[in-house]
Each structure stands twice: as C-alpha cells, then as structure tokens.
C-alpha cells in the first residue's frame, strides 16, 4: 500500500470512528433534543466520510451523495424531528428500558461482536477502507439496540435513522457506494418512511395523549 492509500485508510477509519462515536453519544444522553443533535452531528460526519471516500477514490458520484445526505439528514429530517418533539411534547426521554450505564456497556460489547462477525468481510476486501467495516456494522447493531431499549416513539425513530446511517456507512466503506440511481431510490424511501413514521407519531399523540410506547400495549396475545 502506498502512502496515499495509507492516508486514505487512516482518514476513512477516523471518519467512521467519529460516526460510531456519535451513535454511542446517543446512548449517553437523556433528552430528546440531545438525541436529535447527536444524530445531526453523526450525519454530518457521515457526509464528510462520503466526501472523503469520493475524493480518494476519484468517484465523483459520492460528492452528490454527500450533499444529499447533508440536505436530508442534517437539515430536513432533524428539522422535522425538532418540530415533532416540540409539538408532541415530552422533552425528556423517560427512564429507558435499559439504564444508561448498562446501555453503554452493551454498546461496547456490540461493537466487539461486530468485529467478530465481520472478520470474513475485512479479510476478503482489498479496499483501503476495509478497516472501518466493523465500525459500520457496530453502528447497525447499536441502532437496533436503541430501538429496542427506548420508550418514546420518537427515540425509536431516531434509532431507526441511526440504523440507516450505519448501513449507508457500510455501503460506502465496503463498495465505495452503490450505484447512484439506487442511492437516490434509497434516500427517497428513507425520507418517505420517515414522513410516514412522523404521521404515525402525530396519530399516536392524538389517540393516546402521549408518545410513551408503554401505552401501546392493548394488543396482547
């Protein structure tokens, strides 16, 4: 590997670590506005990583993807989320199902687990960015964990968005991004999915007077 490749590898790993760290910061914070802020910074870090990969791999499509990421996940979606939690109320996340210290330790374990399961991928890949792949899969697992362990519907949506970020990072590190058409389709789907979830949260608020998912337990076996 020449010097350029080594620099590329280091910077890419640095970018992915930053993305993962903001995901872990999500587990540490309590208030919904902090969640949205962590997600915003994470998406920004992700967009910068995309741009970085685009620069080093001479793949200019990734610049477009980075710009769309910034517009969609740093500006539009957090804007909607902020408006959502201001209208729906409840600035604090109630005590989550798994307390914060345990969540953090579980996150550490999940990242170690992802290192174990992605060994074949790292060994097979010849790209300089391959060292960041375990971090991306770790972020995916952390996203799922956030969905499972949080009580407010809004936090679950943010967990889902973090999951999507993890998958996008995986695509960037593993394959230098998927074809642009597909990427656009994915963005559209994510945006629409988010909008529908937002609609549903408003409906939950209207019918249940609260967005604590503890109330969503009428449908038992």
């Amino acid at each position, binding site marked *: 590997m020449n010097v350029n490749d080594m620099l590329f590898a280091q910077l890419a790993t640095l970018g992915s670590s930053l993305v993962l760290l903001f995901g872990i910061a999500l587990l540490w914070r309590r208030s919904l506005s902090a969640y949205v802020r962590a997600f915003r910074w994470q998406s920004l870090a992700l967009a910068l990583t995309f741009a970085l990969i685009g620069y080093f791999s001479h793949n200019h499509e990734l610049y477009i993807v980075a710009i769309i990421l910034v517009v969609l996940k740093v500006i539009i979606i957090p804007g909607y989320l902020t408006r959502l939690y201001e209208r729906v109320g409840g600035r604090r996340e109630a005590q989550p199902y798994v307390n914060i210290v345990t969540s953090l330790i579980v996150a550490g374990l999940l990242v170690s687990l992802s290192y174990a399961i992605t060994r074949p991928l790292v060994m097979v890949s010849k790209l300089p960015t391959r060292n960041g792949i375990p971090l991306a899969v770790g972020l995916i697992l952390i996203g799922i964990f956030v*969905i499972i362990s949080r009580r407010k519907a809004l936090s679950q949506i943010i967990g889902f968005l973090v999951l999507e970020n993890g998958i996008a990072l995986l695509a960037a590190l593993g*394959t230098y991004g998927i*074809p642009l058409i597909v990427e656009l389709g994915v963005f559209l789907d994510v945006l629409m*999915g988010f909008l529908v979830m937002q609609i549903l949260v408003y409906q939950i608020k209207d019918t249940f007077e609260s967005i604590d998912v503890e109330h969503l337990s009428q449908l038992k076996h």
Partner: protein
Amino acid sequence: MIHWELIERMKFLLLLLPSFVSALGAYLVRPYRAMVGWLNALLSLLSLGAALAFASHAAHGGEALVFGPGELLRADSLSALLMVCVAAASTLTLFLSPGVGTETNYMQAQLRRYQLLINLFIFSMLLAVSANSVAIMWVALEATTIFSALLITLTRSKTSVEASWKYILISSVGIALAFAGTVLGYFDFVALTGRAENALNWPVLLQNAPAMHPEVMKLAFVFLLVGYGTKAGIAPMHTWKPDAYGEAPPPLAALMSSSLFAVAIYAILRWKVVADAAIKDHYTDSLLLALGLASLAIAAFSVVLSRNYKRMLAYSSVEHTGLICFGLGLGAAGVFAALLHLVNHTTAKSLMFFLAGDIERKYGSSAIKQAPGLLKAAPWTGGLFAAGLLALAGLPPFGLFISEFALFRAGFAQHHPWLMGAALLLLLVVFVSLITHLNRMLYGDAPAEIAVGETVGWRVAPMLLGLLVLVALGLTLPAPLETLLNQIVRIVSR
C-alpha cells in the same frame, strides 16, 4: 416481427400502469365517487390479463422478457407465477372493496384515501416482482411497507394506530437489514470484479455467484433472510402479523396476507438462488429449515391460545409461512411443493380475511367467544368460512392438502424423518385447534341482538369462485401450472 416484439414488451406497461393510474385517479377525484371504485376494479382486470399473458408466455417455453432502460424490468417463470398471484388477489380485493357495490360505513375521505393507498400498494408489489435489479425490488418492498402502514390506520382507532406503529417499526428495521444484505452481496461482487452499473441485476449476480466468497455470501444471506423474513412473517420476526392483520381493514389484510407475503418469499427465493451458487453447500437450506420449524412451532401454540379469530388467521399465516420455508429448504421437489403451496395459500387466505371482515361487521367484535351461531345467523358466510378454514387446516379436497402432501414427500425423500415428524405433529396441533375454534363459532345460538340474514349479497359469487379454484387445485394440477412450476424449479436448482 418488430411489431410483435413491441407488443410483447408492452405487457409490462399493461401490468404496472393500471394500478398507478387508479391511484392517480383516486387522488385527483375530489370528493370521492363510487365510480372511482368501479373503475379501479375494472382497470385491475387489465393487470390480471397482462399477468396471465406473461404466465402463458413462460409456460410455452418463451425465455425471459426484458423491458426498459438498462433492462429495468424482467419477467421469467418465477416472476410470472407471482405476477398472477398478486394480480388475481388484487382484482379480488378491488372488487370486494368497501364502497364498490355495497354500502359501507367508511366516510368519503376515508374511501378516497383507501383507493389511493391500496392501488399504490398493488403497484409497488407488482413492481417488486417484475424488477430486474434486486435493488429496485428492495425499493418496491420498502414502498409497500409505507403504503400499508398508512392504510392500517384508516379508522384512527387506538388499536389500529398501535398495530400500525409496531408494523412500520419492525418492518422498516427488517427492510433496512435486507438492504444491508443487498449491500453485502454487492460488496462481494465489487471485491471480485470492481464496480459495475448493472451489478445488482439478478442474472448478472447469478452469473458471478460461483466466484464469490462463501463466507461473505453466508453473512449476506443471514441479513437478507432476517430482513425479508420480517416482511414475510417468519418467526421470530412475525410479531407484527397478528396485530397488523387483526387491525387492518379486511381488504388490506386479505392482500397483505396473500400477496405481500408471497412477494417477500419471492425476494428470499431470488437471493437463495444466488447464495446457493456461491456457497455450494446446504447452508441456506439449513437456515430455512430451522426458521420454518420455529415458525410452525410458534404458530401452532399461538393458534391454540387464540381468542380472536382474525389473529388466529394471522397465526395460521405464520404456520403456512413456516411450511413454505420448510419446502424451500428441501431441494427441488421441496421448492415445487412450496410454490404450489404458495399459490393455494394465496387463494385461501384472501378469501378468509374478507369473510372474517364480514363476520366482524355482523357481530361487532372479532373475539371468538362473541361470534357463535354463525350457521344460523348467516349460513352462506358461515359455510364459506368453514370451508376456508378447513382448507387452511389442510383437509382434502382442497389444494392445500395436496401441496402439504407433496412437501412431506419431498421431506422424507431428503432423509429428514425427525424433522418431518415434528412438523406433522405441529400441523396436527394446529388442525385440532382450528377445528375447535371453528366449532365454537359455527354452532350454537347467535346472541339475540344479531340480525339474522346475509349481508354479503352478490359478493358471495367471487368468494365461491375462489373456493372452487381451491377445490380444482386439490383435485388436479393444471398442465400450465405444472410446466411453470417445473421451470421455476429448474431456475432455482441450477
């Protein structure tokens, strides 16, 4: 010559456009008029015709058709079979929709939203089965999640909002994981041959599969099975099913339980073929068998414990999903049986949810205890419901018996006696519980406040037709269907 080719390719447009145009029409016509419902139902006949044309083309040995820039759409035998399933279920649904020839207590705004969303839902399902690229297939499946989630909350009741929230959260996570699996499949391709624009086209993936790394494909297939399995309702990712099917409007429940589940199985099958070519041992088969058995077990016990007939039907769906997964993991004969079972199940389930909806409207509740005396209160509905439930339980002369029999024969031929024995036992448990629940509903006296008499009217006819199809499939295997299934088996076992 060119003229004919063009018409051949126009079939794709004929398949996809009617539902899109129907949705557009429902959106543009304000306020909603009953004519829109009728028009949409008639347009869906065009889709059905196109699907049948594809099927006959494939059954007569024609090779796969492609259409569109970059070969966007492609139809081989597997796609054709699923197109027919989806289009037939959609036509039935649109004809039996609320507001089409019957009075309904939905408001006009709700009916308009219903027509818009259900046609978009049908459009995305048809796109998913006719897409060439696995990525487009993924996009279409995600779209189905979005449209169906919006439709479940048509009546904005507490339980429907709760069901829809659980559904969209679980399904979106599942679909996201399926996307991760897709990326991993593409990853291996890139690691081998570098990026390519058409790399995500299924034939290209299949072609390059033997050279791909087995460990990567194994990881990718696990993600894909979990992801698309969530959409199909394979245990343990099935928890959204009873809630969603129980709370959705009956036409949507019918469509979801018959077609959406079939499309998810289609996605799994497409990827299974690629994974098998790469992995070269029976890894995918073992995974499918394990999950199939788990689904059967969980479904069996849940059916025993059900107190709500709609949720009971949902668990029966999980059971049949388990059987189909089983079949897919049992080699060529198993795949044949599984796909035959898919066709039968599509027919039976779509009927059942309509009937369940009618019963609920009559009795005002979907609890089994509160719906006795069906035969006395509504003999036709009760009779059809009983017939359908017996079909789902796997009794002859209905088609499901034949496909289950074929499945077990394949299983024993593949030397899995213990597995098949366990499956038989679980099926027996389901059978007994379904009959018990049915008896509670059919016999006895209806509560005094329930009006005696049919409310379905002419709608009995299409449902009777569906039942006759089931009987026909149980007595004979029509030659075109057999040819189609054999071709699919050939594709899958390459």
